[in-house]
C-alpha cells in the first residue's frame, strides 16, 4: 500500500468513524445555543441506537423479503429521533418548567438513557434468542455508499468525497442548515439571544421557553440519530453496547472543541474520528491509548485558551447552564 492509499483510507475511515459524533455534536450545539447544557447526550445516543436498530430489525422481520431499504432507513431515523427527543423532552420539562439543576438533570438523563438503551438491546437479544442483527441486505442499505461507482473511482478524492454512506451526507446537510439557521434567519437570531441573555430576549417579545423547549427537544433527536448511525454502520447492524459507550461524552467535548459552530463539527468529528482509529493505522512510538485521550486533552486546551483569550464569540453561550424565569414582582 502506498502512502497515498494509506492516507486516503485513514481520512475515509476517520469520516466514517466520526459520523455518529457529528450528529451527537450538532444536536448538542443546537441544545446549548438555547442555554441548556444537556449532559444526557450519552443517554440519548444510547436510546437512539437501541430504538433505531429495533425499528429497522422489526421492520425487516415483518417485511421479510420485500423489505425496502429506504423505508428501513426512514424508520430507523424516525425511531432514533423520537427516542432522543423524548429523553430531551423529559430534560426540558424538568429544567425549563420545573427549574431543576441542569447538570444533575442531564446526568440523570444519561443514567436513564443508557439504561433504557441497554435494556432494549438486551431485551431484544433475550427475546430473539441470543442474537439480534438486521438482515445483510438491509444492513448494506445503511452502509453502502450513495454515489455511483464512477464518482467513487475518481482517484484520491473519489472515495473521500463520494464514498460514504447516506448518513455522512445527511450530517453535512444538517450542519449547513443549522449554520444558515443561526446566521441568516430571524428564529436563529432569536435562539442565540435566548441562550446568551434570556432576559433581553424576553423583553424583546421572544417566547424564551418555547425556543428552549424546541431547541432542546430537536437537538436531543439529532443527537440520538448519532447513536443509530453508530449501531447501523460502524457496529454493522448489531447492538453493541461496549462500542457505543463514550460516544455521547465525546460529543459533548466536541461541542466545546467546535466552539459551538455546526460547520466546525464536520471536520471536528472527522478529526476526533481519526484520533479514535489512528492507532490502528499509524504506528508512532506513542501508546494507542494515549491517542484515544487526545480528543479530550485537545478539548481541555481549547477550553482553557478560549477562557484566557476572552474572545466573546468563542465563549459558551452566556447563560449556558442557568435556568431562566422572569422576576416575579
Amino acid at each position: 500500500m502506498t502512502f497515498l492509499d494509506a492516507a486516503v483510507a485513514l481520512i475515509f475511515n476517520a469520516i466514517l468513524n466520526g459520523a455518529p459524533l457529528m450528529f451527537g455534536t450538532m444536536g448538542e450545539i443546537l441544545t446549548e445555543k438555547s442555554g441548556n447544557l444537556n449532559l444526557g447526550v450519552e443517554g440519548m445516543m444510547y436510546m437512539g441506537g437501541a430504538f433505531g436498530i429495533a425499528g429497522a430489525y422489526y421492520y425487516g422481520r415483518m417485511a421479510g423479503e420485500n423489505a425496502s431499504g429506504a423505508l428501513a432507513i426512514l424508520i430507523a431515523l424516525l425511531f432514533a429521533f423520537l427516542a432522543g427527543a423524548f429523553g430531551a423532552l423529559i430534560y426540558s420539562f424538568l429544567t425549563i418548567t420545573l427549574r431543576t439543576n441542569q447538570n444533575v438533570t442531564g446526568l440523570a438523563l444519561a443514567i436513564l438513557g443508557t439504561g433504557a438503551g441497554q435494556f432494549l438491546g438486551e431485551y431484544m437479544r433475550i427475546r430473539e434468542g441470543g442474537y439480534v442483527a438486521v438482515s445483510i441486505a438491509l444492513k448494506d442499505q445503511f452502509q453502502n455508499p450513495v454515489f455511483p461507482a464512477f464518482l467513487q473511482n475518481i482517484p484520491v478524492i473519489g472515495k473521500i468525497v463520494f464514498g460514504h454512506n447516506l448518513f455522512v451526507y445527511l450530517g453535512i446537510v444538517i450542519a449547513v442548515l443549522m449554520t444558515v439557521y443561526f446566521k441568516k434567519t430571524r428564529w436563529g437570531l432569536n435562539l442565540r439571544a435566548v441562550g446568551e441573555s434570556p432576559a433581553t430576549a424576553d423583553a424583546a417579545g421572544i417566547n424564551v421557553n418555547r425556543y428552549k423547549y424546541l431547541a432542546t427537544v430537536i437537538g436531543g433527536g439529532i443527537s440520538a440519530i448519532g447513536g443509530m448511525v453508530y449501531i447501523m454502520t460502524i457496529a454493522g447492524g448489531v447492538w453493541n453496547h461496549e462500542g457505543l459507550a463514550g460516544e455521547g461524552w465525546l460529543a459533548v467535548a466536541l461541542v466545546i472543541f467546535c466552539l459551538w459552530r455546526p460547520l466546525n463539527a464536520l471536520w471536528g468529528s472527522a478529526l476526533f474520528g481519526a484520533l479514535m482509529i489512528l492507532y490502528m493505522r499509524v504506528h508512532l512510538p506513542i501508546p494507542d491509548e494515549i491517542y484515544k485521550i487526545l480528543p479530550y486533552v485537545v478539548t481541555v486546551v481549547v477550553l482553557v485558551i478560549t477562557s484566557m483569550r476572552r474572545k466573546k464569540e468563542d465563549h459558551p453561550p452566556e447563560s449556558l447552564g442557568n435556568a431562566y424565569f422572569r422576576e416575579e414582582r
Partner: protein
Amino acid sequence: MRERKQPLFHLVKRSELPAKYAWMIRLLSLLAAMLVGALIFLLLGSNPVKAYGEILSGALGRESARQRVVNIAVPLLGVALAIAPCFKMKFWNIGAEGQITVGAIGATFFALTFGGKYGLFAGKEPSLLLLLMMALGSMLCGAFWALIPAFFRAKWGTNETLFTLMMNYIAIGIVKWLQGGPWEGKPGSQIIPNFHASALLPKVFGVHIGWIVVLVLTVLIFVYMRYTKHGYEIAVLGESTNTARYAGMNVAWITVRTMLLSGAISGLVGFMIVSGANRTLYYGVAGGVGFTAITVAWLAQLNPFAMIVISLLLAVLSKGAGNLETVMGIPTSISDIITGIILMFMLASEFFIRYRLVRSHKESKEAKKA
C-alpha cells in the same frame, strides 16, 4: 377594554415548608417513580409486585447479597460526600469519575510497587503501612486531578463543568494505557495483576473496612460543612461571590482548597474500590459512580446523613435488579431505568417543595379590568 392575558395558575414561592412535609413530598415522588416503574414491568408482561419483591429479596434476602449492597453503597456515599462541598459552593464538579480513577491509580502504584515485596510487605495479612501509603497516594492523586480545573477556574474563569467532565476521560484513558502497557500482568492480557494480600483492605462483618471509613467521613463532612470556618466560607461563597469578597474571603483560594478536598476524598474512594472490592485496577474502576453520586448528593440536599439513605436505596435497586434477569428474564439494566426514573421524579419534587401552584384569583383580574 381587553382583558389582560393571565394564566390559569401561577407560581408562588412557599414561605417555608416544615422539613417533615418536604421529606413527605420526596417520599411521595419516590412512590410515584416506583409506580411508573411498575408500568414498565406491566408493559414487559411481568407482575410488578413480584418484580419489586424479587428486587428486595435479591438485595436483602441473603447475607452475601446484603454485603454486596453495602459494597455498592460505599463508593456512592463516599463520592457524594466529596462532591457536597463543591456543589454547596456552586462549583459544578462533575469530574469525580476521573478523580476516583486517578486516586485508584495512585493506590495501585503503591500496591504494585510494594505489595508482597521487601519482606515488610510480604505477609499474608494486610499491611497497615502499605494501606496508609496507598490511601495517601490516592488522595494526593485525586486532589491533583481536581486541582487542575480548579486552578483554571480560579485564574481565568474557565468553565469547570466542561473541564472536569473532560478530565474524567483523560483519567480513564490513562488507566487503559497502564492496563495494556507498564502495569500489564501476563503479556497481552490487558489486565493488571491482582493485588498482593498485603495491599487489600481488611474486612469487617464481611465487607471491606471502607464502609467504616465512609461512615466516619459522613460525620466529618457534616461537621466540616456546618461547624468549621471552611464550611462557612463555602456556604457564603455559594450564595454570592460578592458577599464573600465583602466579608474578606479569598475566593480563589477557597475554590482551590475545596476542590483539593473533594478530589482527595474521591481519590480515597478510588483506593477503597481497588483495594477493597476489585483487588485490581481496570479502566472501569469508577463505573459511573462519579455521576450517580452527584445525583445522590443533590437529592440529599447536600445533607451527609440523607446521603446514606439515598446511596443505600440506589444500591439495593442495583443489586436487586441483578436478580431479575435470572428469575424473570428481565435484563439487569432495568435497574438503571428505574434509578433514572427515581432521580427524575425526586428532582421534580424539589419544585413542589419550593413552589406552590395557585389558582390565579379573580379579584386581581377585576382590578386590572377596571
